[in-house]
C-alpha cells in the first residue's frame, strides 16, 4: 500500500467517526427547508431552540432530564444490537418496568428509603427484563424474528398496563369528587416518599449551587450514566460481553467455538429489557411519582434513533441522548413561544431524517474504506 493511500485511509477513519455530525447537520438543513416552507426564518427558529434549551441552568436541567430515559432506551437498543438483535420493543419494556416500579413504590410503603429505593429500582429493571425475555426466548428456541414479536409485545404491554392502571387507579381527590368528575387518563396512586429519588436541586443546594427547585432533573440521570459505564464494562471487559459480541458478529463461528447462541440471545434481550425498564427510575421515582401511560410515549422508539446515532457505543448513546434532549426540549419551547405555529412534531421528523442520513453516510464511508483496503 502506498503512502498516499495510507494517508487517505486515515482521513476516511476520521470521516467514519464524524458521520453522525454530518447526519445531524444534514437533518437540520432539511428541517430548515421545512421551516422555510412554513414561511418562518430557520436561523431564528434554531437560535431560539438551542438558546432556550441550553442557554441557562434550568434549560440544561430539562435537557438532561429528557435525555435520561433516552440514555436507558438507547443503551437497551445498542446492547441488543451488539448481539445482532433488534430490540424495538423498548416501548413495551418501559411500560411494564415502570409499572412494576410504581407498584412496588405504592405497595411497600412501610419500608425505609435505604431498602425501598433499591427495591423499586430493581423492580423497574425486572419488569423490563421479564417483558423482553419473552421475545428473547421465542427467538432463541423457535427462531421467530424478534422485530415483529417485540412490536406486538409493545401493543400488548400498552393494553395490559392500561388495564392495571385502572385496577390500581388512584382514588379520586376531594376536588374531583366535588366536581363529580373521573380521571380521564388513569394513573396509579403516588409511590411512597421513601421510594422517591431526590431532585438535583436538593443535592446541589448542599454544595451551595443555585438550581431552580421546580426543575425535574433527578438522581436517575446518574443511574443512567452508571448504566452506560456498566454496559461498556460488560461489553468490552467481560466474558459475557465477548460472547454476546461474538454472536452478534458471526453466530455460526461462535457456535463452532462453543458459544451458545440461544443463551446469549436470551441474556442480551434480558439485559436490554432491564435497561429499558430502568426508565421507570426517571419518570416514576424521580418525576411524577406515579405510573401514567403518556409519560412514556415514544421513549422506546426514540431509543432506536439514539442508539443508531450513537453508533451503538455507550458513550455515543449518552451524547446522542443529550442531543435528542436538546431537540425535544427546544422543540417544545419553540412550539410554545411561537404560539403553536411550529408543531413540535417537526423534531420527530428531524430525528427520522438523522437516522436515515446516519445509516446512509455510514454505508458510504464503509464502502470507501473497503475500496481503499483493496487497492
Amino acid at each position, binding site marked *: 500500500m502506498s503512502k498516499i493511500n495510507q494517508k487517505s485511509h486515515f482521513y476516511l477513519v476520521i470521516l467514519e467517526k464524524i458521520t453522525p455530525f454530518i447526519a445531524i447537520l444534514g437533518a437540520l438543513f432539511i428541517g430548515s427547508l421545512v421551516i422555510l416552507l*412554513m414561511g418562518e426564518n430557520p436561523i431564528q427558529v434554531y437560535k431560539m431552540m438551542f438558546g432556550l434549551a441550553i442557554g441557562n441552568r434550568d434549560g440544561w436541567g430539562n435537557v438532561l432530564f429528557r435525555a435520561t430515559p433516552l440514555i436507558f432506551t438507547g443503551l437497551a437498543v445498542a446492547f441488543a444490537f451488539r448481539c445482532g438483535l*433488534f430490540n*424495538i420493543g423498548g416501548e413495551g419494556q418501559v411500560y411494564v418496568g415502570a409499572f412494576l416500579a410504581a407498584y412496588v413504590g405504592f405497595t411497600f410503603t412501610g419500608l425505609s428509603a435505604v431498602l425501598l429505593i433499591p427495591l423499586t429500582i430493581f423492580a423497574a429493571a425486572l419488569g423490563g427484563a421479564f417483558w423482553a425475555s419473552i421475545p428473547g426466548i*421465542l427467538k432463541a428456541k*423457535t*427462531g*421467530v*424474528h424478534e*422485530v*415483529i*414479536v417485540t*412490536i*406486538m*409485545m*409493545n*401493543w*400488548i404491554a400498552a*393494553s*395490559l398496563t*392500561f*388495564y392495571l392502571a*385502572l385496577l390500581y387507579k388512584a382514588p379520586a381527590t376531594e376536588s374531583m369528587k366535588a366536581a363529580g368528575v373521573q380521571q380521564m387518563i388513569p394513573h396509579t396512586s403516588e409511590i411512597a416518599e421513601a421510594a422517591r429519588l431526590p431532585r438535583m436541586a436538593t443535592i446541589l443546594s448542599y454544595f451551595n449551587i443555585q438550581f431552580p427547585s421546580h426543575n425535574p432533573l433527578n438522581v436517575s440521570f446518574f443511574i443512567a450514566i452508571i448504566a452506560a459505564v456498566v454496559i461498556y464494562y460488560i461489553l468490552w471487559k467481560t466474558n459475557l460481553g465477548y460472547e454476546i459480541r461474538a454472536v452478534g458478529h458471526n453466530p455460526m463461528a461462535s457456535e463452532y467455538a462453543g458459544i451458545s447462541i440461544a443463551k446469549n440471545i436470551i441474556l442480551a434481550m434480558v439485559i436490554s429489557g432491564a435497561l429499558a425498564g430502568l426508565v421507570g427510575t426517571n419518570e416514576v421515582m424521580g418525576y411524577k411519582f406515579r405510573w401514567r401511560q403518556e409519560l412514556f410515549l*415514544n421513549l422506546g*422508539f426514540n431509543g*432506536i*434513533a439514539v442508539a*443508531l446515532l450513537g453508533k451503538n457505543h455507550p458513550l455515543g448513546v449518552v451524547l446522542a441522548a443529550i442531543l435528542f434532549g436538546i431537540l425535544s426540549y427546544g422543540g417544545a419551547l419553540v412550539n410554545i413561544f411561537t404560539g*403553536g405555529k411550529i*408543531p413540535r*412534531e*417537526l*423534531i*420527530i*421528523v428531524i*430525528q*427520522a*431524517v438523522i*437516522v*436515515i442520513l446516519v*445509516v*446512509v453516510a*455510514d*454505508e*458510504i464511508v464503509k*464502502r470507501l474504506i*473497503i475500496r481503499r483496503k*483493496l487497492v
Partner: protein
Amino acid sequence: MENILNADFLASMIRIAIPLTLAGLGGVFSEKSGVINIGLEGMMLTGAFVAVAATNFSHNPWIGILFAIIVGIFLGLIHAIVTVSFKANQIVSGVAINLFASGITVFLSWLWFNETQIMALERLPIWGFGIPSAGESSSLIRSLIVIFAHHSPMVYIAFIIVLLSHIIIFKTPFGLRLRSVGEYPHAADTLGINVINMRYIAVMISGAMAGLAGSFLSIEQAHFFVKEMSGGRGFIALAAMIFGKWTPFGTLGAALLFGVGEALAIRLQGVFAIPVQFINMVPYLLAIFVLVGAIGRASAPAADGIPYEKEIL
C-alpha cells in the same frame, strides 16, 4: 352462539382483513424481490392521513385514495434508495420510515387542520345489492348479500388485487424476474436482469399497497384520521405474509384468520365480561402465535434482507 357467528360477523371479518391483506401483499412484493419492508406500518399511517387530507381538500374520496397510493410509492422510493442503492440496513430504514411517518402525519395535521383527529368529509358509496328487509327474501339470500355483495368498492378491488398479484408474481415474466432477484440475484444478474431496477419497482409497489391499505383504514373503516391509527397493523400484515408463505392467497387467508380473531374478540366482549384492554390484545397475541406456528414450514426468499453487491467485497 348463532347471534355471534352470523353474516354480519363474516362481513366484519372481511372488512378487518382487507387492510391487512393489502399491506401484506406489499410485503410479498418487496420481500419476493429480496427487500424487507418493516416501513409498511409508517407507509400505511401516512396513506391513512393523506387519504383523509386529499379527500377533504378535493371533496372526492377517490382522489384521497389516489394520493395515498402516490405517497406510499414515494415512501417506497425512499426505502429503495436507502436500502437498494446505498445498501443500508433494511430494518433500520424501515424503522426510520415509521418514525418519520408518526412525526410528519401529526405535524401536517396541526399545520393544515389545527387538530390531530380529522373527520373524512366524503365517503365511498356502497357497491352491490341493497340489504333486503326481513320477510322480503329468505335469510340465506340476505346473508349472502351481507357477506359478499354489500361492501365498499375497495373490498372488491382488494380481492381483485390479490388475484392480480398472484398472476403477476407467478404467471408473468416480470414475476419470474422479481422472484429470481429475491432468490439468487447473482444468477439473475448474469442473465441480464437488472437487480437494482427490479428491487426499486418491487419496493415502490409495496409502498403503493401500504398506502392503499392506509386509505382503507381511514376513509372506509374509521371515517377519520387520528394519530398512530395504523396501530401495528403493518407488522401484523408482515405476520400474515409470513404465515401465508409469501404468497398472495396465503396472505389473504392469514389476514382473514386475523379478521376472525379480531371480529370474534369484539363480539365476545358483549357476551362475557372481558375488559376491553384484553380484547385489544387479541390481534397482537394472535400475530405472535401465528408466527410461532409458521416456524419450520415458512420459507422466505433466499436473498431476503441481503443487499445486492455486484462484486463480493
